């Protein structure tokens, strides 16, 4: 009963057709969970100017998954173990202090390249199932199981809970670390904790979008929100809204077209970002 998905002018029928297959329902559930978490964590990542670290952590999921496949362990464990470990390595390197030489970014870059090299090695050792490689790198929403959705939900709940508890001090520490530190906020501890949560988020998102495209969901909704509002609460809400909307749209369009979901999600996200920049420019011109 596999029928070619066909788009008609009847929008309601089209949407209903989307929900006909259980794999699409699971994909939508997983996509929504992932989109919400990515938007919330991504918003803090952009405020903290840790986009590079976020991107690297996103890519570390790839060798994790490849190693897990090689060892015959669940891919999920590989994702989470590697991303958490990578977050700790990046967190342990001291921030560049007085010198201009950006040691921190050099470490992040090296970690990233080594991780990707290791991932490639693992895939080669596994005797190159290249389709598996492209699924790891570019994601696949077709095979999400009910158990996976539950795991994603649990991790997302933990991540959101972390932000709910430490959100205020974290924001303080991000905006003005020295004042926050003087006021007794544990800045270093928060930084390490945030990186680990960022790593877990990246691991979680990787499973849907693939290691190469996690970054789009982390940075683009957050950047869009920052262009539209400088208030934290409103900004996070906008980021979540944008992120969920582009994920649904991406899943829906990918279902009806032969092109991969990663392309659609990143394109819609980028359009939203450029649109928000343009909108801000117009508002400024009008107000002037």
């Amino acid at each position, binding site marked *: 009963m596999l029928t070619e998905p066909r788009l008609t002018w009847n929008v309601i029928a089209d949407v209903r057709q989307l929900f006909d297959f259980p794999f699409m329902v699971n994909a939508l559930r997983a996509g929504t969970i992932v989109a919400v978490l990515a938007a919330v964590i991504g918003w803090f990542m*952009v405020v903290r*100017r840790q*986009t*590079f670290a976020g*991107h690297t952590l996103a*890519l570390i999921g790839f060798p994790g998954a490849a190693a897990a496949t090689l060892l015959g362990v669940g891919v999920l464990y590989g994702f989470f173990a590697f991303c958490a470990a990578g977050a700790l390595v990046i967190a342990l390197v001291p921030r560049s202090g007085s010198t*201009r*030489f*950006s*040691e921190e*970014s*050099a*470490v*992040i*870059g*090296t970690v*990233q*390249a*080594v991780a*990707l*090299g*290791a991932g*490639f*090695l693992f895939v*080669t*050792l596994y005797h190159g199932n*290249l*389709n598996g*490689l*492209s699924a790891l*790198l*570019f994601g696949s929403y077709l095979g999400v199981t009910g158990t996976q959705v539950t795991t994603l939900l649990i991790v997302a709940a933990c991540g959101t809970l972390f932000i709910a508890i430490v959100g205020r001090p974290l924001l303080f520490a991000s905006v003005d670390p020295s004042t926050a530190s003087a006021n007794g906020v544990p800045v270093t501890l928060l930084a390490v904790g945030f990186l680990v949560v960022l790593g877990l988020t990246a691991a979680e998102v990787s499973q849907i979008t693939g290691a*190469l*495209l996690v*970054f*789009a969901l982390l*940075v*683009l909704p957050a*950047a869009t929100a*920052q262009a539209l509002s400088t208030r934290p609460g409103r900004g996070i809400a906008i980021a979540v809204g944008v992120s969920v909307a582009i994920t649904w749209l991406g899943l829906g369009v990918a279902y009806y077209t*032969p*092109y*991969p979901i*990663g*392309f*659609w*999600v*990143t*394109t819609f*996200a*980028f359009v939203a*970002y450029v649109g928000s920049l343009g909108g801000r420019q117009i508002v400024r011109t009008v107000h002037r």
Partner: protein
Amino acid sequence: MFTHSFMQHAFIAGTAIAILCGLVGYLVVLRGQVFTGDALSHVAFTGALGALAFGFGARAGLFAATIAVALLLAALGPRGRGDDVVIGSVFAWTLGLGVLFLSIFTTRHATQNSAGGVSVLFGSIFGLSAGATLTAATIAVVACLVFAAIARPMLFASLDEAVARSRGVPVRALGYLFMVLIGVTAAEATQAVGALLLLGLLAAPAATAGHLTARPFRAMALSAGVAVTSVWIGLTVSYVVPWMPPSPAILFVAAALYATAFTVSRVRVA
């Protein structure tokens, strides 16, 4: 080992590319532009796949894409450097485009599967022909000469921008030129170690050199030396160990050298 022509090609092209990466990488790290290098390396992936998908040569696509995006990032950022969030947003989308090109390419050339995509992502230094080697080496030499010509004012502008500008150094123009140079380096290195791994060849040797000496010009030379050493050892290891692909081997050596330098300088400070 050198009786095989593919090994000779790999060593010639690898050395030239390593020198370029080491030199440019030092200023990239000094200026805190590693993230830009990261972005351009991913753009290289999209460029090469786009060219493959639409039937041009991969190399033309590589250079066109990296140079164009380098200029775009320079234009969008303050003082020709590029802002983190802007860079991230642009290249997140570029990656998405790359995925689209990959899927177009694989559906058109069903027999080749995604091998073309893999060689772009992870390099194919053992697959270089004599012509490709010559081209890669020539471009690397020219880029190194350009680098040598702008190294002094560039270093000045990187260390103290305000003073450099007041002394008549064209800081902004240099910023643009340097971005183009990073783009060229990214496109070059993609042929050797692949789009996903070239960041290591930019960052690790430069950071190693930064630990060994504080003098900038000595550090540049050292950085190029470390990069060349990594490539040579990596290629040899990959030749001797059959299951080891060349690009991860090169990266592991570069990272090991960096980790050693990092630890040694830590111990010395303590």
